[in-house]
């Protein structure tokens, strides 16, 4: 909720500033220093959804490279608790090099347990910790026409995806929202996800956490909303990711350039998070204005 102050003010002021000064934007290619392959990037969001879990390892790449970073193969990837060790195995398919899988871990995650990710690659060891926090159960999901569309400001018809749930009684909870259309994830990228901090939230939460364009759905589609418990650090990770990649360089409201925070050690980038999650769905039918 606190994030709303920053997001709202920053975005509006940035737009206002650019509108006022009528500054132009020109694409340029700069002569940048290059540290291609110098950093290991870790993508590890382990959940209790009962499915096969994965950890993706890649190298950093030159800024102007169009592709993604080269995979990190041959690493040893483990997630440990005080009494258990889950060893991940790298995919045997070349096209999935750098992906490390585990089939059972999702079934045996426990609330309030601290999980440690250990990645060993040659003589380098990268570690990160994540505490599995509980997540509130979604009561229901509804769709509502976004006020911008309702008022005609937005010419497209956009629906807000409304989440309805009882917030957890404990303080400082952070939630991550994704949505699926007919079981296909539509919020893959960091900037597409919904983030909510429960600071100042009412006990019963009922508001828009994501939005969806009518052009991307049709009557009868099954829209599934997913809520995950995340740490404050991961909340910050996504928050900064959004600002650094969407408002980078804006002279009025842009964040000064800085690295996205990480919970990994030894100079690795990315994030490790263990989450509890649950889902609810709604079947879409056109909502008349």
């Amino acid at each position, binding site marked *: 909720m*606190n994030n709303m102050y920053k997001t709202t*003010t920053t975005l509006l002021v940035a737009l206002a500033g650019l509108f*006022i000064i009528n500054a132009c934007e020109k694409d340029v290619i700069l002569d940048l220093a290059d540290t291609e392959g110098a950093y290991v990037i870790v*993508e590890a969001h382990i959940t209790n959804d009962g499915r096969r879990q994965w950890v993706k390892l890649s190298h*950093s790449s030159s800024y102007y490279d169009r592709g993604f970073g080269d995979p990190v193969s041959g690493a040893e990837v483990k997630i440990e608790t005080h009494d258990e060790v889950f060893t991940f195995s790298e995919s045997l398919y070349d096209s999935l090099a750098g992906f490390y899988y585990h089939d059972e871990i999702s079934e045996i995650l426990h609330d309030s347990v601290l999980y440690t990710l250990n990645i060993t690659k040659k003589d380098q060891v990268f570690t990160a910790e994540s505490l599995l926090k509980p997540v509130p159960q979604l009561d229901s999901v509804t769709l509502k026409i976004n006020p911008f569309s309702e008022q005609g400001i937005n010419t497209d018809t956009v629906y807000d995806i409304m989440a309805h749930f009882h917030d957890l009684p404990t303080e400082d909870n952070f939630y991550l929202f994704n949505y699926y259309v007919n079981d296909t994830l539509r919020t893959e990228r960091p900037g597409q996800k919904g983030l909510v901090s429960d600071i100042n939230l009412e006990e019963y939460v009922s508001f828009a956490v994501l939005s969806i364009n009518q052009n991307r759905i049709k009557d009868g589609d099954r829209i599934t909303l997913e809520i995950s418990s995340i740490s404050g650090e991961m909340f910050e990770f996504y928050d900064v990711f959004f600002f650094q990649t969407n408002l980078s360089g804006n002279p009025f409201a842009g964040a000064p350039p800085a690295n996205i925070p990480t919970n990994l050690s030894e100079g690795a980038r990315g994030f490790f998070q263990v989450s509890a999650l649950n889902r609810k769905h709604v079947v879409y039918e056109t909502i008349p204005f």
Partner: protein
Amino acid sequence: MQKLILPLFILLLLAGKYGIAQQSVLTGTVKDAGNQEYLPGVNVLIQDSEQGTVTDKDGKFRLTLSQGAHTIVFSFIGYQRLEKTIVVEDAEYQLDVALGNGGISLTEVVVEADRRRGNVERAGMSTIRLDMENIRNIPAFLGEVDVLRTIQLLPGVQSAGDGNTGFFVRGGNADQNLVLLDDAVVFNASHLFNFFSVFNADAVKDLQLYKGGIDPEYGGRLSSVLDIQSQDGDMDQYKMNGGVGLISSRLSLQGPIQRGRSAFLVTGRRTYADLFLKFSSDENQRNTQLFFYDLNAKLNYVIDDNNRLFWSGYYGRDVTKFNELFGFDWGNATSSLKWNRIFTEQLFANFSFLYSNYQFNISGDIGPAKFRWNSALHNLKLKASFTLLATDNNTLSFGAESIYHQLDPGIIRASIEEAAATELELSPNNGLEHGAFINNEHDLFNNKLLLEYGVRMAAFQVIGPGKQYTFDSSDPLRWKVQDTLELEKGTFYDTHIAIEPRVNVRYKINEQSSLKASYNRMTQFVQQAQSAQSVAPYDVWYTVSNNIPPQSADQIALGYFRNFFSDQLESSLEFYYKDLKNISDVVDNGDILGNELLEGQLRVGKGWAYGAEFLLQKETGPISGFLGYTWSVSKRKINDINEGRAYYAPNDRRHDLSLSGSYHLTPKWNIGMSFIYASGTAYTLPVGKMSFQGAFAPIYAERNASRLPDYHRLDLSVTYTPNLRDRDNRRFESSWNFSLFNVYGRVNPISVSFAERDNEPGVPNSSFFYIPGPIPAITWNFNF
């Protein structure tokens, strides 16, 4: 060190009092014969001697001379040269003069050979006084004459970016400049997101920028003092002047209330781009508001020969409103009440009661989310300053001031329909700042050596209400609140005391050249957190606290000053070194926008800056202008930032060259130009990228380790005055100004964006934000 300062000061003062010199002291004032305004910066010289001075901001001067007959020469650009022969028999002599406008219009060729001896004569260095008439001849962005943009051209001063009136002085931050309008602090001196300054050129009489060697009278900021004095109003006749430009119009009226005794001045300015939006067919555009306005007013009343009263006020607002979705307005208000009192021929005083206010309001109705943020700060100041002509060769200035700071970051109200409503009250920062100062100007060895030495005692008291946070700093990047202390309303808490010695020394080599040295310590108790890459209207001011100690700066400077061609050409070469303590910067990804735990996002460390500045200036004759060059370095070293390693300050720039001037082609035609070249500013550029969940983000190494491309720009202007008031014996005069900003359309980046290419997800791109050019402008100015 501090224990030695007071005895040393007394010793130096006594040395003057009991010195062997037996000379007379000449004091007086210089004013405009027409409107009776006192004139600052007038050259006052004893003919056929090496002695001279310039008038202060109240038009006063003081000279030491031997008894007997002397011819005193008064000269000032745009005025008739005046020579007065006096016979001095007593120890003191008072001489008040008035200079007549010699019919030297700006549109005529200025042939008066004004002697600009002040450059060599003054003890003070690192100080530049700009003449408003010369500022008007420099090409203006969109035709709006702007004093802050002109200041950015000076050596040692850097712009905060293209199209930005923010400035940095000698490696300092933008909030380290004390900007004064008639002695009242102006907290945000910009309109339209820094595009224009709040100073309407029609209202400004005089401005002086101190980059170093700062007089003990001034305090509270580390890097510079920009002292702007507004016009007093004409006591003799009514005058009106104004202008119609592309983006704004101006109107100024002044005249006597009681002829020869009191006068008024009112100026106003408003932009009108938004008025044309009313004719738009688009309803959203019709509902858009986008303008700024400002008003200046001044009253000036001569009570008697020994008492004079001034009141001046400023009120300005920026208003931005997009439909009902978003509103943002901000502005300053100042009020200055000053009483000038001459007690005796040796003692005069200024008493001031000053008020400053700055506030901003942001509102948004974004779908189900509603947002309001109202913030304000108030500054109330009482000041008394005295000048005592203590002995033949000692002029003592002393005084005291107290400032009440009420910094209220405000209340943020946010709500999400059917879900949440919250109100966040940002903790106020209140404090009392005190300053007591004493300074002696000490003339030695028949004006061969001139010393100015003094000290400022500064203190700051934190006053409740408010909050003091104690942070757990075990995670260097994420401080967490450990404890909160509620400060009770009206209760005094921490007191910070600082002693600030100030010394200026001038050794005159000969009539045309001198060597100067200066040392000053400055302390700053009130700072501003900068949220974006340029100074923004919503940047919050805060006071010292248990987490934020007072900042201090020690600066030494050495300089050689040389005039050529009968003082028509001034030059100076200065070297400086500045040591900054307790300077603060925002931690990586710091969230300081509307954050009640702002202090947890700041880190404190040290900084240093050094450089060399060269200035060549010519203010008289058909060709006038200046050439400035700066070589400088500015660095910071702060724990938890850049992993504790030293890094370049965001304003670090190695080379800065500016050439600015005007040429009076004929009495009716004037050509102006300015050219700027600066090597690239320090910037943080990526060294790679990381891919994550189908998106990517840049990876950075060292903070500010890279450079933006070099900056260069040429501006030109032509002014045509069809009817010359003085030559054609007309009361009405008008002129047309045509200007071209960024003549050859150089792309000078304000900042750089690293993001995905539009409509091509996953494709990395980089782009410059810049002000496009060339930008033509036309302005019609008039006066009668």
